[in-house]
């Protein structure tokens, strides 16, 4: 348990750093950056939880670090919620709705795609 917590702490630091780096670097495109982070993270989390442990000998601590820590901290729900409210106030309902529905739709689609891709990879390896 302690190993898992340390891994989540370390990878959580890294996930936050990558998100912070991207939002700082692409500061003028804040909403698009958060959208891409959340969609990419949804895909990566599916691959990490569904494919990685079946393809590589990976310890439970590192796996928790990568899923709960790295991707969990990389993506963010609180910023997504506040962003939707800010967009509604500053840019109107259309852009807010687009950001809100687009993030949800593409995020779930990315998670679904990641899951299907994982099954394909795992099955492919089984028959090699």
């Amino acid at each position, binding site marked *: 348990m302690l190993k898992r917590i340390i891994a*989540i702490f370390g990878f*959580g630091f890294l*996930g936050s750093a990558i*998100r912070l780096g991207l939002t700082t670097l692409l500061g003028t495109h804040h909403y698009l950056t958060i959208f891409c982070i959340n969609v990419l993270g949804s895909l990566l989390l599916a691959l990490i939880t569904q494919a990685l442990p079946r393809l590589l000998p990976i310890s439970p601590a590192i796996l928790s670090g990568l899923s709960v820590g790295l991707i969990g901290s*990389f993506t963010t729900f*609180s910023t997504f919620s506040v962003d939707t*409210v800010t967009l509604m106030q500053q840019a109107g309902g259309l852009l807010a709705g687009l950001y809100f529905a687009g993030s949800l739709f593409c995020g779930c689609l990315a*998670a679904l795609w990641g899951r299907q891709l994982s099954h394909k990879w795992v099955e492919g390896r089984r028959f090699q």
Partner: protein
Amino acid sequence: MMITILICLAGAIGAVCRFGITQLGNRIFNWVPLPLATLVINLSGAFALGVLAGAFAATTTIWLVGSGFMGGFTTFSTFSNEVVTLFNKRRLLAIGYLALTAFGGVLLAALGASLA
């Protein structure tokens, strides 16, 4: 540079808190058919960030607690993956979880901002 490291440390602490609450939730509330821990984490985080955004626009506090802790604490990827997992088993429940998290998060963020 120092503040950047502190923000990332806050994010790491947020991730560990999320892990703790999820572990606890899985043990105590395992009879609830919804991913209750993630729901509580995301809704409370959205409300807290709303309060912060309303009260301390673009100050160090919102960066440290908001982008750092709340960013690490709440998670979009676990939520979207849980929706997909749930959808394969119980479609209506998955849509309910999606709607509750998404609309609840935005409403609570707006409420938090209006309170501040």
